[in-house]
């Protein structure tokens, strides 16, 4: 379960699967993402819970994404996500529009082993027109009260990054609880961590409160600074200069190809 390399750890992420990744601020596994692009992963159904930034933009630009399911893709203060925007305008990817809490609820449905989850709102939004797979029913507990039902999202693989793991496969995720929900919902979970610790993380009650138990985890590899150029909460910040450079380069096809050559295909010196 503990792998020697990130390349080994990402083996469960086959072409054409549904891959779930976390939002950009919760620890986006960028080293593993670059490894997937180097390996040439294809036809992913990428679900970003509930949004994404560089990670989705890189995978889309690299041609790894067939279907994208998320609430938003943006580089935040660095502007629109250029490869996402270009792919959408070219009709190059299938987009499943969503809204953040709908994705959270759909993952919780899978977590609970139920086929759907209800959610307030949404009715009257054009998102519903893009989602024939979402249903509107009358709330059986009230009169004339329409409500949306969201089908469970059961990813083939959840790919996450965390600060710590132990050799029993327990992973310390801290406050980023949706990483646990992703692992509960997914058939398999692939994890990269900043470092491995000795002993069992569950043995310490204070640490245990932030632990994802090992029985949900398929593979783990150490990837120090593994979210670079994005950050890990309370661990290290995003590399703003690099993100600004990405936004500049990725604005054009050629610039993006140059970025891939420099920062993805040429394995970055740590």
């Amino acid at each position: 379960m503990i792998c020697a390399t990130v390349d080994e750890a990402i083996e469960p992420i086959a072409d054409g699967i549904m891959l779930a990744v976390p939002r950009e601020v919760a620890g986006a596994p960028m080293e593993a993402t670059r490894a997937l692009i180097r390996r040439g992963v294809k036809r992913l159904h990428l679900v970003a819970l509930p949004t994404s930034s560089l990670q989705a933009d890189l995978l889309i630009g690299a041609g790894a994404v067939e279907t994208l399911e998320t609430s938003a893709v943006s580089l935040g203060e660095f502007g629109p996500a250029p490869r996402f925007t270009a792919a959408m305008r070219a009709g190059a990817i299938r987009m499943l529009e969503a809204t953040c809490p709908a994705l959270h609820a759909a993952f919780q449905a899978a977590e609970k082993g139920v086929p759907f989850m209800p959610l307030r709102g949404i009715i009257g939004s054009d998102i519903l027109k893009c989602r024939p797979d979402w249903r509107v029913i009358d709330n059986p507990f009230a009169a004339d009260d329409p409500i949306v039902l969201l089908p469970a999202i059961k990813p083939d693989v959840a790919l996450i990054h965390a600060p710590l793991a132990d050799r029993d496969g327990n992973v310390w995720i801290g406050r980023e609880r949706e990483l646990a929900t992703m692992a509960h919902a997914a058939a398999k979970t692939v994890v990269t961590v900043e470092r491995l610790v000795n002993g069992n993380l569950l043995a310490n009650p204070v640490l245990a409160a932030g632990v994802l138990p090992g029985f949900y985890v398929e593979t783990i590899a150490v990837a120090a600074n593994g979210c670079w150029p994005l950050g890990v909460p309370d661990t290290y910040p995003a590399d703003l200069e690099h993100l600004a450079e990405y936004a500049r380069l990725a604005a054009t096809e050629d610039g993006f190809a140059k970025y891939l050559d420099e920062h993805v295909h040429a394995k970055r010196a740590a």
Partner: protein
Amino acid sequence: MTTFRIEELLVDVVARLIGDARHVAVGNASPIPATAALLARAQGGGRPYVSLLQSRKHNFFTDGGRELFDCAGQGRIDVFFLSGGEIDGEGNINLVGIGDRDRPSVRFPGSFGSAHLYYVVPKVILFRTEHSRRTLVPRVGFVSAPGTSPDNLYRPGGPIALVTNRCVFGFDKTRRRFRLDSVHPGQTIDDVIENTGFDFDRGGIVPQTAPPSPGTLRTLRETVAPELAEVYPQFAAAVFGPTGRA
């Protein structure tokens, strides 16, 4: 008379719109609403609770990304802020794009949490500095979230106002229209009409937006600016000076 920057005026306007609240949440990349929430807290002696989703220090959620939405669904978030690539006269917002859905001519990032929060947060303040016919349109190209809903739909929340760099619009839920409440110093009603793509109501006399009081400016510059510097360093430096003070 004290001089102030347009950002300080907007912060003051938004803080007054927040009014009395238990919990105000502010999304990412929203420096002026964030500053306004911190100002409201400073003026309220610690109330409202302020959650700045962009910050770790001002973010008290511990149940993952879903907690903000769950908390709003519970009715515990009184005020939230939304914007739009397009906003129309019925308060509909478009965060998705313009043109053919499969090959849009313009693509925005996406709807984020708007299709839930716009329905369940009692006071949603629409904020868009760029006030032009490009952003304030007759009819949005995609409804990420509608300004109003049929009476049978569960909807405790919705828009109360739209704040731009030119004026403040109030939203009349029953008439499903905006109403021009005040025009910022340096702007005229004609400027507003000329640059607004939708029709709106207005009374015979439209006041000028009240400037921030000296006391408010002092609180803003001395108490709020340093707090803000942790969350929006560039913005704090630009508006309040490099030390985070004007």
